[in-house]
């Protein structure tokens, strides 16, 4: 597959001011997204992972201009023209939103309880000035695509289960046939038995409609399953970017390794892999100097706390932000065993 970029994010930053006291004086900034750059190619799924507070949701919201980015460019290569989302006018944003839509995490709060399903799904069309009759027809067309019957059109969100609501959110995103969809934790609020249905649906829709996804999640096994490439964030910084194979099998950043090792394996006969990262994510208001991960990194040297590493190209599209990415041996042995394995049942 030739790599045609559809979205290029260049040096994106978003700093939220922190205000204190009676006069609401600005006492500092939370660097929610700090100089993040990545490219999304047509037809692929880019996974964006990290712990809470790492800035992944802020990146998603910047992509849609739901929060205003402070710095950087977000280039969307549309069919006819290229937009810079970071500086687009209101009118241009209408065109952008025809090319790019978002699916939110919580299907219980992202649907207006007083709107019928048909109105919820048709809302993006209304914004695009499509007539009511036409909009109604397109809603009935899209319902079967997301696995809902036509009788759902007249229901209210409270009559639907979590999985059905998330299908409605997906239909709302896809109604304007956008080539690019940002999915912010689309399955984490769902029951286990429904989660796999929605992942299957997202995979199906991607191949049927030739969609491109930016898929944000904290569940690494799901991200691994659905993504072609993965970006790992820590405290507002991109720390590793590569293909799923590179990030999961050949990761070079100690944080990525720790994140992967803390995934619990659903197999009671394998209780030994888990490595536990000590400490907690520092406050994004006051991140550690030098490499932000240096306070928790088992390999930190003096240089790490004074000098911030650059994102370096390791070849083959694999980027790592670590001073010692070439030298570190991130093999299994350094990670201590966690639990003892139970003996087979008796």
């Amino acid at each position: 597959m030739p790599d045609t970029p559809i979205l290029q994010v260049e040096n994106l930053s978003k700093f939220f001011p922190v205000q204190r006291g009676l006069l609401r004086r600005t006492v500092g900034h939370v660097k929610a997204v700090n100089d993040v750059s990545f490219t999304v190619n047509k037809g692929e799924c880019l996974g964006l992972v990290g712990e809470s507070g790492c800035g992944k949701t802020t990146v998603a919201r910047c992509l849609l201009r739901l929060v205003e980015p402070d710095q950087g460019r977000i280039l969307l290569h549309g069919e006819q023209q290229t937009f810079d989302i970071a500086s687009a006018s209101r009118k241009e944003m209408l065109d952008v939103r025809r090319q790019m839509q978002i699916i939110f995490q919580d299907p219980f709060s992202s649907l207006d309880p007083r709107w019928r399903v048909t109105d919820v799904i048709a809302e993006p069309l209304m914004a695009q000035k499509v007539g009511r009759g036409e909009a109604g027809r397109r809603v009935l067309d899209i319902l079967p695509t997301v696995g809902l019957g036509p009788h759902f059109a007249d229901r209210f969100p409270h009559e639907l289960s979590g999985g059905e609501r998330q299908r409605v959110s997906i239909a709302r995103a896809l109604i304007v046939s956008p080539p690019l969809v940002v999915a912010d934790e689309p399955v984490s609020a769902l029951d286990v038995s429904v989660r796999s249905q929605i992942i299957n649906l997202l995979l199906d829709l991607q191949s049927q409609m030739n969609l491109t996804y930016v898929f944000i999640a904290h569940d690494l096994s799901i991200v691994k399953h659905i993504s072609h490439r993965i970006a790992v964030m820590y405290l507002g910084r991109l720390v590793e970017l590569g293909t799923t194979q590179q990030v999961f099998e050949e990761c070079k950043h100690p944080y990525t390794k720790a994140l992967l090792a803390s995934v619990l394996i659903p197999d009671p006969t394998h209780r030994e892999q888990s490595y536990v990262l000590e400490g907690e994510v520092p406050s994004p208001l006051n991140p550690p100097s030098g490499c932000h991960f240096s306070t928790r990194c088992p390999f930190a040297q003096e240089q790490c706390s004074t000098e911030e590493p650059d994102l370096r190209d390791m070849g083959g599209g694999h980027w790592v932000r670590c001073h010692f990415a070439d030298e570190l041996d991130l093999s299994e042995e350094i990670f201590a065993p966690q639990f003892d394995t139970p003996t087979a049942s008796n």
Partner: protein
Amino acid sequence: MPDSQPILEVHDLHVHFKMLAGIVRAVDGVDFTVERGRCLGIVGESGCGKSVTARSILRLLPSSDTSGQILYHPDGDGQPIDLVSLDAKGDAIRAIRGKDIAMIFQEPMTSLTPVYTIGEQIMESIRQHQNLTEEEAQELAISMLNKVGIPDAERRFGDYPHQMSGGMRQRVMIAIALCCEPRVLIADEPTTALDVTIQAQILRLIRSLQQDLDMSVIMITHDLAVIAQLADFVVVMYLGQMAEKAPVVELFQDPKHPYTQALLRSIVRPDTPPREQLHSISGSVPDPRNAPSGCRFRNRCPSVHDRCVEDPPVVQFGPQHSATCWLYVDE
């Protein structure tokens, strides 16, 4: 098996709630035994009754209609106590609650009161159950904070909950639960609200405390990976009923109930081929008020047949392995 002394036995537990819209049978006939020093996992999706089961052990649901038996075996040769027969607000259950059986809840953000320091909240539990002076209680509280891995415990003792992160608050909850050295710890989704790296820390802490204090743990979760990593014995619940119970390795290697089988097939494993369709269960969990009669899983079950409209029998597959399903009964 070395010592399989039961510490808690639940027999035919039913918990019903009377609602305007009718009776919700949140828990309908649950049986299990918690052994000394072992971890029992209860797994299921939302509405399966796992949290209600946990809360009814401590009689935290006074307005419910609870029947059945919950036998607690105290240390020594004492007679077992039937917790269901106790007055939910009486002294007898209050002496057990927090002392012999302690609980940690899902939301570390909301289960601590914001108006007291964490030190005061730990000492409240200590002084309720132990006859200690203020100084002794404070000393014990600080040593508990150290034990659960809170750095700089003396200073953090005077912190309010809002000054701590989610992982730290969950450690405080664990410290409160453990300060009276309970025989049984009930952990209701203790890591669901936490990040993956913190989840691994908390689970390791629970496991090591369980071994050090020879404590029994009831781990309640929707996450089969947590069960696989921690539990010795597993109860699978669906809509208030027990679908299957088995030792953990047996459950993962040879599941019998179609629901357990489907759940285990639907999770992503390290060796799942990327981007392939996952196995899934059709439909979603029905509202507990409209639960189907007979087997409650029947409207989503791939192996459903005519008999499933009647209550399914419990079929034994080994001394400790059983499933509640018609599939294994000859016509």
